[in-house]
C-alpha cells in the first residue's frame, strides 16, 4: 500500500462482509468459527455461513461472515474483505470483492492481483508459521489461527476475547492453549510491527447479543428431540442432516444416562440405509416410543414407501428433512427449499403429510419438540423441514426456552386401565370422536383387549383386511377429516401487516425470513410497502387463506425453481395462478435481500 491510492477504500463500522477462502480439510473452519464467535462476543450481530464443497480435502471452501449492526443477517451477496488463503480460488476471490475492499493473502508467495481498486494486505503467514513451529501439521494448522490474530488488529477487535475463546475451546486439552495463543500472536505481532492498522473496516462493541446464543439448526433440532422426549433415533449419514442425529446423541449422552446404572435412556442406531432408518423409527413409534429420523432430499425419496405405510396405517413418526440442492444428488453441500412437494405428498396413492417449517435454529428447537406431540396426537408422519443454511450454520437467535409445566401429548392411547373399563369392542380405526383421529394401543398393553393387526392393506374400522371399496373410501375420507384437524393444531402463520392499505402481500417460509425482512425494509424506504405472511406449517389453516383472499396479489418467495409452495397453495386452496406471483431463487446460496427487493421493485411500479 505504498503506492498512491487512486480509489476510495471502504470505510464501515460494524457493517461489512468478510469472506475466508480456504482449502477444504486444512483446519480453517474452527479458526473461522472462532473469529465469528469473537464478533458475537463483542455484541455485534453476525452470521457465519460455511460455503463448502462435497469433498474431504483439497477443494476450495469459503466461510462468509456478515456483520450487521442493524441485525440484518441474511446473505448479502458481496464481499468487503477477503481473507484469501487458497491460491486455487484467487481469481474468484479477487473478482467478487467490492471496489475499495480489502484482500488479505498469504504473501509467503508474492502475487500481483489484476485489480487496482482494492487494498491488498500482505502477510507471509506460511513463512511466519514455519519459523515458529517445527511440526508440519502445526505449521499448516496454525496459519489459520495466525490470520485470525492478524484480523483482530486490522479490524480493531478486543483481543482478550480471543484469549478467552482459546482457553474455553481447549479447556480439556490444555496443552493446546499455548500454541494457539502463540499462533494468534504471530499474526497480531506481524500487523502491529509491519502494517498500517486498523483498516477502514472496524468492529466496535455493541450490546445487541444480550439474551442471544449462537447455534446451528441441526444442533437445536437434536436438542429439541431430547426435550420432546424422543428415545430412539434411527438415521443414515447424509449431508446436511448428519449433525442433527449427532446433536441428539450429544445431548442424550449428557442428559439421558442413568446415574446409578450408567445405562442409556435413549438409543441411537445408525441404519444401513434410509429405508431402514425410517422403518426403525416407525417400528419404535408403533411400539409406543417417540422416535425420529433425520435426512435430506434423497433420503425422503428412499423413505417414501414407508411414509405411505405410516400415513395409511396411522403410525406417528417424526422426520427431519434438512433440504439441500436437488434434483438427484444435486448440490449436496448447498442450500435449497426444494423438497416441499416431495414431503407434502410423499409416497404413492393419496397421501398428505404434516410439515413444520421453522425459520431459524430457535424454531428448529421448538418445532422439533412440537413435532413429537403432533405426530402422537395425529398418529401420522410429521416432517420438520429445514435446510442446509439454517441446519449447518451457526445463527444468532434468542436463548432457547422451555416451560417446565409442559406435558408430552401422547395423543389418543388406550392403556391397560382404559381398556379394562372399555365395554364396547375396540376398533383401531373407529372414529369415536369425529375428528378423524382414532384410538390406538401399544403392543403388550392388555392381556385380552386392544390387540389389532397393523397393515398397509385396506382395512375396516377393526383393522381387518377388507377389499370392500366403500369401506376403503370411507377410511380415506376420514383421513381427510384428520388432516383438517391437523390444520387446527399446527402453528398459525406469522402475519406482519404494513400500515398502508392495499399493498401487495408476500408469502415466505423457513430460512428466507432474514432476507425477506431486510428486503421489506429496503422497499419501504423506497415507498413500496408490503404485507408479510410467514407460513409455519402445512396443512394451511384459515389464516393463510384469509391473508391470500385479502390481497390482490401475493408474492411467494422461495428457494426452489418450481415455486413449490405456490403450487401447494394453488392445489390445496384453489388459488388462481395469476394471484400468486412466483419469486424464486435456487442457486444453492442462501437467498439475498437485494434479489427479493429487485424482483418486487420490478413488478410494483403502480404502487409507488
Amino acid at each position, binding site marked *: 500500500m505504498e503506492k498512491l491510492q487512486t480509489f476510495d477504500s471502504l470505510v464501515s463500522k460494524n457493517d461489512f462482509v468478510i469472506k475466508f477462502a480456504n482449502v477444504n480439510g486444512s483446519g480453517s473452519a474452527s479458526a473461522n468459527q472462532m473469529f465469528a464467535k469473537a464478533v458475537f462476543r463483542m455484541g455485534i450481530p453476525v452470521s457465519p455461513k460455511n460455503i463448502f464443497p462435497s469433498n474431504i480435502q483439497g477443494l476450495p471452501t469459503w466461510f462468509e461472515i456478515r456483520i450487521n449492526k442493524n441485525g440484518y443477517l441474511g446473505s448479502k451477496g458481496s464481499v468487503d474483505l477477503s481473507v484469501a488463503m487458497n491460491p486455487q480460488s484467487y481469481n474468484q476471490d479477487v473478482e467478487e470483492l467490492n471496489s475499495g475492499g480489502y484482500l488479505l493473502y498469504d504473501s509467503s508467495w508474492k502475487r500481483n492481483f489484476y485489480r487496482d481498486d482494492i487494498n491488498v494486505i500482505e502477510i507471509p503467514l506460511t513463512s511466519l508459521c514455519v519459523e515458529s513451529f517445527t511440526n508440519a501439521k502445526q505449521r499448516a494448522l496454525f496459519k489459520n489461527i495466525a490470520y485470525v490474530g492478524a484480523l483482530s488488529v486490522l479490524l480493531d477487535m478486543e483481543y482478550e476475547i480471543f484469549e478467552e475463546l482459546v482457553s474455553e475451546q481447549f479447556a480439556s486439552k490444555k496443552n493446546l492453549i499455548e500454541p494457539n495463543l502463540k499462533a494468534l500472536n504471530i499474526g497480531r505481532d506481524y500487523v502491529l510491527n509491519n502494517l498500517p492498522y486498523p483498516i477502514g473496516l472496524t468492529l466496535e462493541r455493541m450490546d445487541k447479543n444480550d439474551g442471544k446464543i449462537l447455534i446451528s439448526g441441526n444442533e437445536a433440532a437434536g436438542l429439541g428431540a431430547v426435550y420432546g422426549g424422543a*428415545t430412539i433415533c434411527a438415521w443414515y449419514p447424509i449431508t446436511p442432516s448428519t449433525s442433527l442425529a449427532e446433536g441428539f446423541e450429544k445431548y442424550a449422552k449428557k442428559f439421558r444416562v442413568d446415574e446409578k446404572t450408567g445405562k442409556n435412556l435413549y438409543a441411537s442406531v445408525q441404519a444401513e440405509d434410509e429405508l431402514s432408518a425410517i422403518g426403525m423409527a416407525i417400528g419404535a413409534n408403533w411400539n409406543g416410543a417417540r422416535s425420529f429420523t433425520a435426512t435430506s432430499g434423497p433420503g425422503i425419496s428412499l423413505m417414501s414407501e414407508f411414509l405411505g405405510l405410516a400415513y395409511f396405517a396411522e403410525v406417528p413418526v417424526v422426520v427431519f428433512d434438512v433440504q439441500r440442492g436437488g434434483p438427484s444428488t444435486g448440490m449436496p453441500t448447498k442450500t435449497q427449499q426444494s423438497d416441499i412437494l416431495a414431503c407434502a405428498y410423499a409416497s404413492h396413492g393419496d397421501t398428505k403429510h404434516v410439515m413444520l417449517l421453522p425459520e431459524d435454529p430457535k424454531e428448529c428447537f421448538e418445532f422439533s419438540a412440537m413435532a413429537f406431540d403432533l405426530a402422537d396426537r395425529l398418529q401420522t408422519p410429521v416432517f420438520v423441514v429445514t435446510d442446509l443454511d439454517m441446519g449447518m450454520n451457526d445463527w444468532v437467535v434468542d436463548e432457547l426456552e422451555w416451560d417446565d409445566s409442559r406435558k408430552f401429548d401422547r395423543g389418543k392411547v388406550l392403556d391397560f386401565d382404559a381398556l379394562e373399563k372399555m365395554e364396547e369392542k375396540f376398533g383401531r380405526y373407529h372414529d369415536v370422536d369425529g375428528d378423524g383421529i382414532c384410538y390406538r394401543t401399544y403392543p403388550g398393553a392388555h392381556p385380552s383387549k386392544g390387540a389389532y393387526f397393523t397393515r398397509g392393506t385396506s382395512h375396516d374400522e377393526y383393522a381387518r383386511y377388507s377389499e370392500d371399496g366403500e369401506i376403503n373410501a370411507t377410511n380415506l375420507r376420514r383421513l381427510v377429516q384428520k388432516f383438517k384437524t391437523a390444520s387446527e393444531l399446527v402453528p398459525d402463520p406469522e402475519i406482519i401487516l404494513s400500515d398502508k392499505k392495499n399493498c401487495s402481500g408476500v408469502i415466505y417460509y423457513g430460512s428466507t425470513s432474514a432476507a425477506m425482512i431486510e428486503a421489506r425494509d429496503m422497499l419501504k424506504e423506497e415507498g413500496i410497502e408490503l404485507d408479510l405472511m410467514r407460513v409455519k406449517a402445512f396443512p394451511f389453516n384459515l389464516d393463510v387463506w384469509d391473508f391470500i383472499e385479502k390481497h390482490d396479489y401475493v408474492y411467494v418467495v422461495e428457494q426452489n425453481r418450481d415455486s413449490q409452495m405456490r403450487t401447494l397453495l394453488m392445489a390445496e386452496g384453489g388459488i388462481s395462478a395469476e394471484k400468486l406471483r412466483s419469486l424464486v431463487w435456487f442457486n444453492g446460496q442462501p437467498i439475498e435481500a437485494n434479489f427479493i427487493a429487485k424482483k418486487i421493485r420490478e413488478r410494483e411500479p403502480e404502487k409507488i
Partner: protein
Amino acid sequence: MTYIQKPINHHPNLKKNKLGLTRRDYEGAVSSLCAGCGHDSISAAIIDACFELNIEAYKVAKLSGIGCSSKAPAYFLNDSHGFNSVHGRMPSIATGASCANDDLLYIGVSGDGDSASIGMGQFVHAIRRQVDMTYIVENNGTYGLTKGQFSATNDKDSPNKYGEENPFPPVDLAALAIQLGASYVARSFSGDREQLVPLIMGAFQHKGFALLDIISPCVTFNNHDASTKSYDHIREHNDALGKVDFVPLGREITANYEEGETVEVNLHDGSKMSLEKLDSSYDPTDANLALNTVREKNDEGKVATGLLYIDTKAPDLYETLNAIDKPLNTLNEKELCPGSDKLKTINEGLN
C-alpha cells in the same frame, strides 16, 4: 388375508397349559393360503410352541413384510399385536420395535422373496446387529402371490410354470446367517412338526437373533421334481443333524442317551436345547463346522436340517446399545425431559 374368525366354541376336554389355555386360544383368523400350503403348518407349529411354552399372547409382537408368508401372522395369536409392513422391510420395523420395548417376544415372519431379494439388506443388518427376535423364513423358492416367479432361493435349472429354467444359483439364508453372526440358526421343514416345534421353542427362548429357515413347499407353483423346496424332495433328502429337543426350565432330560451322543445348550432363561447327535462329530457351537456341514450336505444333494448353530453368549442389540432395563416406551417427561434449568446452562454455553 382373511378376516374370517374361527368359531370360539372349544371342545371341553381340550388339553390346557399352565395358563389354563388350549391350543385354540393361540389360533388366529382362518387362513386364506392355498390348501396344503407349508406356511399353514408353520403357523400350527408356532401355535404348538406358544402353547407348550405357556406364552402370554399379548406379550408377543408379530411382524411381517409382504407376500404369502407375510400374511401368516394373521393366522396365529389373535391376542397379539401384529404389523404387516412393507416388502422386505420387516427387519427394520422389528429393530425399532425391539429398541422401544425389549420385554416383548418378537416373531418376524418372512419369505424367500421378502428376505433373500428385496429385503436382503435389512435381513443382513438385523442379523449383524443381533436384534433379539425369532426370524422365520417360510422358504418355498417362489413368488406365490404374484403367481410363480423365481425367487432368489429357487434352484438353478429348475423350471417355472412356462418351463423356463432358472439361470441363477440359490441364496442359502441359513449359511448366510451363520456367516453374519446370527446366534441361533436352524433349518427345518414345515412338514416335520416333531423337529420344527422344539426348534421354534428354542428360538423363542433364545436371546439374540434366531433364524429359522423353514422349507415350506408351495403346492401351487414350486412343488415339482426339479425343486429342492418340494414336498417330495425335502422328505427324501432331509438330513437331520440330530434329533432336537427343547427342555423347559425345571424339567429333566429323561431320554437315555449314551455319553457323547448328546449336546446340551443352556438358553438365556435357564431352559435347554438338547441335541441327540446322529452324526457324532457335529458341534452346533462351531460356526465353521456348521458352515462346512451345510455346504457339504448341499453338495451331496441333501438338505441339512436341525439346529445348525447356536451361540448363547452373543450380546443382543439392546445390550449393545447399553439401554436401560426398563422399556424405553415406558419413560415419562420427568425421565426424558432435561427441563428449563438445564436449558439455561446450555444457553450459557452457546454465547
